[in-house]
């Protein structure tokens, strides 16, 4: 099958920071923090998608990372195969993946609502496998690079090399979060979504079309994942295993406390920073597992994650 055993190798920065001599310690740390922040933003965005779906529908979507992969591949297809401009391709990909998410909800996932959580987890794992298979048949199992306006450009600020790819990720995340915040707080649909996710029945009695809201939430979180995929594309490379980044994003969501939106972002950024800093300062091999070690430690102390709430089921 040819699956890399280290599934998240794509997020390694291109330059080795340990060998960069002639730099102040502070510069190196700043550089690491900047890159870690960018990588963490990606984790955070994917985790945000998990949390949105979980809060609304109580489903845990293991295929979130594969939405990201689909978004990156769709953009690649439009840009390289059909010669569409980057921004148009970006918008098209997000729209397509978003619609796909909504369609998936209304055809498949709605049927399993109310079944044991485990069944849903397995269902989405199965869907993820189907998406990967689909991608490998449609686009091939090679590794692609997506040309973007940010690729391979950098600005030096003091001793820190600020590459535009990373900046684009951070800026994109901030803008997206602001938009989502305003959407959920200020718009009619956003408030209706919050209501539907707090109590389905009550929302239904208030005249909110709960099912349509759920489809919309799936569309939003698939779209957010697609955005994350496109933002990540210049830093990482596009291949069918891109979706495995979802595993780390999952760690991020759990670290923040599943079901807390700020928690997802904070968890993602924490994991991104830990990953880059441990890659630079700890012995070889820690980079890939440091995030998980921290996750286990946090869960051992606070089983509900950093921002999670303790909920005991009513008997």
């Amino acid at each position, binding site marked *: *099958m*040819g*699956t890399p*055993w280290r*599934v998240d190798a794509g997020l390694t920065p291109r330059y080795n920071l340990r060998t960069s001599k002639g730099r102040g310690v502070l510069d190196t740390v700043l550089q690491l923090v900047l890159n870690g922040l960018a990588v963490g933003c990606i984790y955070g965005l994917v985790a945000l998608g998990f949390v949105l779906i979980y809060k609304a529908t*109580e489903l845990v979507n293991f295929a979130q990372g594969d939405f990201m992969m689909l978004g990156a591949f769709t953009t690649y297809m439009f840009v390289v195969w059909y010669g569409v401009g980057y921004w148009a391709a970006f918008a098209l990909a997000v729209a397509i993946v978003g619609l796909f998410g909504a369609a998936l909800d209304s055809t*498949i996932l*709605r*049927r*399993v*609502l*109310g*079944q*044991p*959580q*485990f*069944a849903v*987890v*397995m*269902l989405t*794992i*199965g*869907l*993820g*496998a*189907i998406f*990967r*298979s689909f*991608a*490998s*048949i449609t686009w091939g*199992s090679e590794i692609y690079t997506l040309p973007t306006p940010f690729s391979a450009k950098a600005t030096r600020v003091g001793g820190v090399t600020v590459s535009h790819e990373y900046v684009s990720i951070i800026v994109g995340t901030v803008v997206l979060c602001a938009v989502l915040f305003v959407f959920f707080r200020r718009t009619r649909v956003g408030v209706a979504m919050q209501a539907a996710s*707090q*109590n*389905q*029945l*009550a929302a*239904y009695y208030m005249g909110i079309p*709960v*099912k349509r809201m759920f489809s919309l939430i799936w569309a939003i979180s698939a779209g957010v994942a697609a955005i994350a995929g496109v933002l990540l594309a210049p830093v990482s490379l596009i291949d069918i295993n891109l979706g495995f980044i979802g*595993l780390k994003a*999952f*760690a991020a969501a*759990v670290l923040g406390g*599943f079901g807390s939106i700020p928690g997802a972002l904070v968890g993602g950024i924490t994991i991104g920073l830990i990953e880059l800093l441990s890659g630079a300062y700890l012995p*070889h*091999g820690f980079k*890939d*597992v440091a995030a*998980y*070690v921290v*996750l*286990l430690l946090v*869960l*051992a102390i606070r*089983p*509900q*994650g950093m921002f999670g709430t303790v909920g005991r*089921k009513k*008997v």
Partner: protein
Amino acid sequence: MRFVFKTTYGQDLGLFRDAVQRNWYVALLLGLILLPRLVPAYLNDISLVFIYGLCGLSLMVLAGYTGLVSLGHAAFLGVGAYAHVYFTQTLGLPWIVSVALAAVLTAAAGVLVGLPALRMTGVYLTIATLAFALIIQEVFARWEPVTGGLKGRAVDKPVVFGFKMGSDVAFYFLCLVFLAGGIWLTANLLRSPTGRAWVAIRDSEIAAQSMGVNLAVYKTMAFAYSAALMGLGGALFAHRIGFLAPDIFSVLLSIQFLLMVVVGGLGSLHGALFGAVFVALLPVAISQARDTVPAGLGQIAAVFGKGAGDATFVAADRFVKQPGLEPGIFGLILVLFILFEPLGIYGRWLKIRIFFSTFPLYKHATFRRQKTYMRSERLR
């Protein structure tokens, strides 16, 4: 429909419902003992079915009976496999001692995961076990003196009590003995107070706690027992694949184990074994289908003319040779099972059996599942 008239409590506790059921199982065992004479061709694949059967039992105890879903069981398999290979080949311990030690060591690893997992529920636990598995996988890759690192480590043929078990037939019987022992042990455990405590925890933690079940003790026990079975499976698995490398024990293998218990049918030992048959033999079936399906389709299309037949053959052949197809088929089967047969193969078998034994009176509602929502009553 045949009713078993119970006159003693012993009948409630017995391993088998009645003599008829026992005789069927004895017949099955005899059949498996005679199998190498009847079909010598696929013995290697059937050995894998037995090993996966052990793994399925292991995960069934944890996920199906105790309700703790682990996405890290491949790591336990790996611990068992590497420990066994280290004990026999580096330390030179006797085979049976090494297997026992491997099982104990894996059980210890299970306790290690189980302890922090005590306070977690649902998706937190799943992710914690996943994190554990990824860490262990990195350990396999880095701890070169013991595991051979990324280069991997070759595994010798098993030598049990001085007998070299090099042939497929000998290995088949070795696996059969372990699987039968595992089933017997697990079935006994599940009808003991321990097993009932596990089921109580699965159905409602709070209710179990109020009835005096010590959650910490029983959850840790479930983890330890499940891991020990996985360790036994790992020791056999090492011999079966003949070469250990870290990438074997990946998340994908853990997912395959979960696939096994879901497709087989959660909450039944039969389900674990049906699932093992399914997961171990599906790749064999797929590779068979790769060779035969395009030709078959081509012959069907040839009805419309030779050109159509050839074109269909070429297209179908190119499609089935795609490397990414197999995981997709696995995924598709998983999705179809969860949507249309949540009780798995065993559930389907039960339905068919009850349909015939109650023939004109079968009710669809017998197997209707109650839906539970966490935050509100239902979806409208």
